[in-house]
């Protein structure tokens, strides 16, 4: 049972940051020049430094699965990048004063604080493991310009995606401490998602009784519209 297939997409980011030809292949797979540009930026945010690190790692070591700390760093940097995006989203939204309802505003403020703490914790962890991802350049102006409804619906989408992103990585994390921390963040993202779903009139449990995970590829595709050059 445990000797099943390799993670279908779990190591996608690792491959992309290590192997120019697989990066090219992946970009081709994803499609258009816009997509490629956005992904390159995403990778610049969370992969470049790692690429340098991997230069010193032998292929053999990689194959033998000796790089637990290294693969954990990639997951932590992936999470850090998502948290950077979320934190900026709420900072921008709160600054724009687009949320009018008091209870919703309080929830948004709470979520913003949580995301900032996640950034701090993940940044500290990434530093311990190696080189942290850089803060991605993102813009949420189009969403903010779309008004309160669009802002809240986007927030709900982002939180559901974030929760699924953590769930998608849980089984790949090698360090039990990092797993425990990721789980502690994962459920907070789930809480955010449920509250926002409720606010926008969606089911608090859109997947039913069992939440579904999302792979790195799926998540990358969804966040790329927010990345800017």
């Amino acid at each position, binding site marked *: 049972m*445990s000797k099943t297939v390799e*993670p279908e997409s779990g190591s996608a980011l690792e491959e992309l940051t290590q192997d120019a030809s697989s990066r090219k292949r992946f970009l081709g797979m994803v499609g258009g020049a816009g997509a490629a540009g956005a992904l390159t930026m995403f990778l610049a945010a969370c992969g470049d430094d790692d690429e340098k690190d991997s230069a010193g790692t032998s292929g053999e070591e990689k194959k033998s699965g000796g790089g637990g700390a290294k693969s954990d760093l990639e997951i932590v940097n992936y999470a850090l990048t998502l948290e950077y995006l979320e934190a900026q989203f709420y900072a921008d939204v709160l600054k724009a004063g687009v949320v009018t309802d008091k209870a919703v505003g309080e929830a948004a403020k709470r979520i913003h604080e949580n995301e900032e703490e996640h950034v701090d914790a993940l940044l500290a962890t990434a530093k311990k493991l190696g080189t942290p991802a850089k803060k991605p350049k993102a813009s949420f102006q189009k969403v903010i310009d779309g008004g309160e409804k669009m802002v809240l619906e986007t927030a709900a989408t982002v939180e559901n995606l974030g929760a699924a992103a953590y769930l998608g990585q849980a089984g790949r994390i090698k360090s039990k401490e990092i797993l425990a921390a990721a789980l*502690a963040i994962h*459920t907070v993202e789930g809480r955010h998602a*449920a509250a926002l779903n409720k606010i926008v009139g969606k089911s608090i449990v859109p997947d039913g009784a069992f939440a579904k995970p999302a792979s790195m590829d799926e998540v990358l595709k969804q966040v790329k519209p927010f990345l800017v050059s």
Partner: protein
Amino acid sequence: MSSSKLVAPELASIEIKGMTRHAFMMRSAVAAGSVYGLSTVGPFVGRAIAQEGGGDVDILNFALTLEYLETAFYTEALKNVQGLGGEAKQIAETLRDNEAEHVDALTATIKDLGGKPVAAPGVDFGKAFANQKSFLKTAQTFEDLGVSAYNGAAPQIKSKEVLGAAGGIVQVEARHAAAIRFLRGQPITPGAFDEPLEKQAVLDAAAPFIKG
């Protein structure tokens, strides 16, 4: 990680290998009532799974007890809470259904692993059903406790399939907790990190509701 509070001290040295999407989908199939494909691959694999899942069965039975408790709580609440209506009633129905599905999935998984599912505990919810307000307050306690219980136990799970399934359940518990908190006008999160609780602390917290 940076904060020692996040690290459950009781974590055993278990290497959790990568959970695959494929594996997760297999688990979803288990949740739906089928069995890892055991009927086709035979008893050898069944024994292997049972061995791998030795400690996992204990964790799953612990989770099952909590899910039984939650299911009974919402089932009785829907019958007994004075003046239960509107959003509170809707949430109670959703949560009852979700918890019942968790019970079914955990029971099936324990059996698949060669374990014996624990019986449903006797329950006593005291004055929790006196009114809608007291019901929601107790519901929040249950859901927050459930989140911390799973977060405390999950890093010790050996099987990546079981870990994936537990992750899918705990996120739903967290969603329940947030929905109830929002309805009550409480902060939707207790903090930025849902801290893990050790098994004994969870059982102590649940003890007042368990009788017999």
